[in-house]
């Protein structure tokens, strides 16, 4: 006895609320909705980044009979059953940023591809330390999917001859808690006196590592790089602990994912390899054999441009 609302309702389910990255993606989603007209964005997510929390939310979204779910998953597998159920009930599922396993979604939109992201981070580190020396990785939790993929890529990239003088001495996990990340960073500095760079592919980690380096008076001796948001990193770029870091544009990512979801809802594309999906002002992307598509390379920020972008996201 439900009257189907006329608007297309697209729910954006993020890893956790209160995360600057996803807030920016939300901005992008709203932009897409405005452009498309007749689209309503429901922005939601659990408080702490847990798969169980996202499952609860999807459950309620299914009850609400939304038209599409755009999700950054906390667990590629755990969310598959519920996502499948959603798809059975006619809801389109598009994952972005941190993906779902293929059977649980129509499409995965990578901000960039993992190869590019991994290579980029190694390259930034290499540039900062002059191509030789010890480096270490400070990640989020050991369960973070995309972090793990990037770390895998980084390890592979390091096998290349041009990086033969760079040695990865440790991978540690700060669980995205500032105190633990800080302590782990200090631990790295202690146990590896020769350390030249810390790569932190997570925003809590890169912030904590920068602070640790500054507090230990190692600015200029140890460089921090990785992935972070300009608004959160601006201070540390200024302090000198970070020379450059990278991130893709989360606004674009949110925009594109929402736009793509709408395409699926309208039946303009089908989820099959090789399909081309329009992503509005960003052109179009093509699905690969896994149903994945990527936007572009990550963007690099440094002292020259960070302030400008800090105001945006």
């Amino acid at each position, binding site marked *: 006895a439900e009257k189907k609302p006329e608007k297309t309702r697209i729910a954006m389910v993020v890893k956790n609320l209160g995360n600057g990255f996803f807030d920016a993606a939300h901005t992008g989603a709203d932009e897409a909705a405005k452009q498309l007209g007749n689209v309503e964005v429901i922005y939601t997510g659990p*408080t702490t980044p847990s798969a169980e929390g996202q499952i609860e939310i999807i459950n309620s979204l299914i009850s609400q009979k939304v038209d599409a779910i755009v999700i950054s998953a906390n667990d590629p597998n755990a969310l598959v059953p519920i996502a499948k159920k959603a798809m059975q009930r006619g809801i389109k599922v598009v994952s972005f940023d941190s993906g779902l396993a293929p059977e649980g979604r129509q499409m995965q939109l990578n901000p960039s591809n993992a190869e590019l992201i991994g290579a980029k981070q190694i390259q930034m580190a290499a540039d900062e330390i002059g191509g030789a020396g010890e480096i270490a990785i400070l990640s989020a939790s050991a369960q973070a999917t995309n972090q793990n993929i990037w770390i895998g890529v980084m390890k592979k990239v390091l096998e290349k001859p041009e990086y033969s003088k760079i040695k990865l001495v440790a991978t540690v996990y700060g669980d995205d808690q500032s105190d633990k990340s800080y*302590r782990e960073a*200090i631990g790295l500095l*202690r*146990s590896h006196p020769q350390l030249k760079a810390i790569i932190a592919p997570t925003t809590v980690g890169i912030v904590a590592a920068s602070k640790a380096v500054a507090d230990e008076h190692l600015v200029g001796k140890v460089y921090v790089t990785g992935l972070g948001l300009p*608004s959160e990193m601006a201070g540390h770029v200024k*302090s000198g602990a970070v020379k450059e870091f990278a991130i893709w544009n989360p606004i674009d990512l949110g925009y594109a994912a929402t736009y793509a979801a709408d395409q699926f809802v309208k039946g303009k594309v089908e989820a099959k390899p090789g399909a081309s999906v329009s992503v509005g002002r960003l052109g179009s992307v093509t699905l690969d054999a896994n149903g994945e598509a990527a936007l572009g390379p990550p963007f690099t920020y440094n002292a020259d441009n960070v302030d400008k972008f800090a105001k945006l996201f």
Partner: protein
Amino acid sequence: MNILKQREPLLAAMVVLLVVAVGLREPAFLSAGSLANLVTDSTLLVMLALTQMLVIVTRGVDLSVASNLALSGMVAAMLGAHVPGLPLPLIVLAAVAVGLALGLINGWLIGYLELPPIVVTLGTMSVYRGAVFVLSGGAWVSAHQMPASFVAFPLDRLLGLPHLVWIAAATLALMAWIARSTRFGRDLYAIGNAPQCAGYIGIPSRKRLLGTYALSGAVAGLCGYLWVARYAVAYTEIAYGFEFTVIAACVIGGVSIGGGVGTVLGATLGALFLTVIGNALPVLQVSPFWQSALTGLVILVAVLINARGAGRRSRQILPLHGTDAQPKRSAA
């Protein structure tokens, strides 16, 4: 023999032993800088463990400290970020005031409404944490938004020691004085030993409990500012789950969950012990996947060592065999 039976010296020995053992494996750990960092790193935990100790002594528990810390820290960070030119002391005062207010809510519910502490603080823990999100809209306050003096204060040095250490030392002295030399403090022990009896002899239990949770809240508020300044970032999830670390520090320090027993020295050593573990594991390059399991094991071992002989006490009615032939038991 007697020394071994006391908790504090044993715990102190364990801390020293642990530091030395880690130092043998990884000499860098014993460098002056590293040890100084260890002390600095322990400060927040020490401060929170001390007030938690007083709370536990009254047979209570304050599960809301970490949420309180996050909320006060967020208030401080937002004041720093959005009210330019606000003098630092005022910001700190605001953080303490927020913490105090939150502590008073706990204290009122527990003292005046006589509700069970674990339930009350379980509730306020969720509420305070949620309030951080509501207040900040979920947004971060990052380093560049905070004034430089705001961020620099905790680690700036006075007479060679960071402010953090001075503040912790002052807290330690204050708590030692409260616990040992004030009626307020002694009343807490009486309340913890026998809550009903405390009422019979005229101890104003309600006021005392209010004061204890208020103190716990105020210190959590202070730590809130110190935390966000030290790590130069404030967001909803800071110090998530830290309450259990604080309680674990107390428990390792010999503070009895059953109330009435606990010393300032013990709580401090318990906090130091956990800090050493937390710092040693990364330095020793223990696999990150082992860290949680090892921490759990260490807590259990420390608690077991603490508990030796504290189980069923038996009395001594028979004359002791040995030197004293005649027992002096019935003194009356």
